[in-house]
């Protein structure tokens, strides 16, 4: 008897989650299931595939409201532990960006700069329950006459705090090498001269957007794991670019899709929002993101079955080309090669160095799996999907 085509809705899956019957697997488990049983059988058996990624994600930050003071202040400039926050909003609203260094940071005046404390560290300290010094200055108005105030605040003291990251979970990123004769200090880490090492940043087969390469289930309103709590995708992230070159399996060869995400900071866990200092480059925030992929049909089973061998990225020279604004693609490597620890480039063995934590990514996928299995986390219907690639409809 021929097997019937699989077609499920998110409602069907949620019903199964509530009944405690949903089959949830992590993306690396799904790779093996699809390999062994094929996408049709896998789609029949599996309801949800969980993904994860944990790496520095520079385009991150938090909106905070710090409540009115007595007398009242229209804050024009705001600092948290000496790190400037954007205050060009309403009287006591601000946005602390992850890459903002402390105002007195020596930056790269002695190269490579250390960038010991910045916005990402402030966010981490707040989530860790530490008190930070909030300072604001103002020009004074009839309704808000106060011109300066300073106080210690903890996250619980803030009336409102939301992590809102304009660009997270980049779908694929360059593999960075250095063909120059000097060590370079980049957002891709320290790269030694003359092909000393090759740095990359992705969790590969566990990465959210590699498991739904055309964004067929992800969009505005998708409920996710964010910073150890529940968060939401609120749209395409900045630089979301679906129309890049893709392989037959839909996996883009270079930086493509991105997510804009938000979640309540007060519910987050310090382990999953960590301040980062990139030597000679700047401050950032490592963010934990996990997206559940509903296996609605065979196609989604097939996409989530992707393995490290089938995910490729381009090699780019950050020593000469990239700083000039030329991202010349010097070759391709698979994530399986990168993960093996050595890649072969120009007849040379080059040590591969990850910036993204695979262990932590797997931990996220497993936590999310646990939440869904317990019925604590239901899938949501996105109200509008992320813009997909024009090539998808021609497949």
């Amino acid at each position, binding site marked *: 008897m021929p097997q019937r085509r699989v077609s499920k809705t998110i409602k069907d899956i949620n019903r199964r989650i509530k009944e405690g019957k949903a089959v949830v697997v992590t993306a690396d488990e799904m790779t093996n299931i699809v390999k062994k049983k094929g996408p049709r059988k896998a789609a029949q058996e599996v309801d949800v595939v969980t993904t994860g990624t*944990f*790496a*520095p994600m520079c385009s991150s930050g938090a909106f905070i409201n710090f409540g009115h003071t007595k007398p009242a202040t229209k804050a024009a400039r705001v600092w948290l532990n000496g790190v400037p926050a954007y205050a060009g909003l309403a009287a006591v609203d601000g946005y602390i960006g992850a890459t903002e260094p402390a105002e007195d940071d020596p930056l790269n005046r002695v190269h*490579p700069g*250390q960038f*010991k404390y910045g916005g990402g560290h402030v966010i981490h300290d707040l989530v860790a329950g530490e008190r930070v010094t909030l300072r604001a200055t103002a020009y004074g108005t009839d309704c808000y006459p106060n011109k300066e105030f300073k106080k210690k605040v903890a996250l619980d003291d803030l009336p409102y705090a939301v992590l809102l990251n304009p660009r997270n979970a980049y779908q694929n990123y360059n593999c960075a090498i250095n063909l120059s004769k000097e060590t370079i200090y980049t957002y891709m*880490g*320290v*790269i*030694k001269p003359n092909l*000393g*090492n090759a*740095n990359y940043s992705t969790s590969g087969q566990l990465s959210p957007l590699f498991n739904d390469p055309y964004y067929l289930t992800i969009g505005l309103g998708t409920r996710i794991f964010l910073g150890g709590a529940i968060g939401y995708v609120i749209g395409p992230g900045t630089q979301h670019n679906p129309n890049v070159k893709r392989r037959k399996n839909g996996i883009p060869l270079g930086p493509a899709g991105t997510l804009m995400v938000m979640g309540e900071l007060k519910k987050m866990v310090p382990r999953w929002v*960590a*301040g*980062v*200092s*990139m*030597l000679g480059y700047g401050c*950032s925030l*490592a963010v934990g993101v996990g997206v559940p992929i509903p296996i609605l049909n065979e196609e989604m089973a097939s996409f989530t079955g992707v393995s490290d061998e089938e995910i490729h990225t381009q090699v780019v020279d950050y020593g000469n080309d990239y700083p000039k604004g030329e991202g010349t693609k010097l070759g391709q490597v698979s994530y399986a090669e990168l*993960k*093996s*620890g050595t890649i072969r480039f120009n007849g040379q063995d080059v*040590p591969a*160095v*990850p*910036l*993204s*934590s*695979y*262990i*932590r990514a797997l931990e996220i996928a497993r936590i999310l799996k646990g939440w869904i299995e317990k019925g604590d986390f239901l899938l949501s219907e996105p109200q509008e999907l992320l813009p997909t690639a024009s090539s998808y409809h021609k497949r």
Partner: protein
Amino acid sequence: MYSKMLSLRFPKKIVNEPVAVNLVKKFDLSFNILKATIYPRKEGFMVLELSGHRKNFQKGVRYLKGLGIKVESIGQDIKRDEETCFQCGACTAVCPTGALYIKRPDMEVIFDRDSCSACELCVSACPARAMKVRFDRSLLY
């Protein structure tokens, strides 16, 4: 055969003394210099691995101290804060001795303190700043 990683801090006046050669000639020791610098105020700093018979080793260290050099064992100098480290692997790019390496296929980042030469390159290269320098004050001799 006895071998230890040492840090030597030279006061300004003896930067010109050929101490390493004397360790070989007078005490039959061998050495491997991992780091040597002279700071702006003319005091020197050297990290070396000193090897030989235990007795000779102790005599050699006594000789160095007699010259006014501050000798410290640095076998335990670099520590990893396990809470802070988030296991990315960026440190493996700079570690010259392979003390920091990735265990595959689990991708766990391992710090093998026995192979650490205390060069300190990982301290600032670690994005999470989990690698800390801790001076072990107990001089062993």
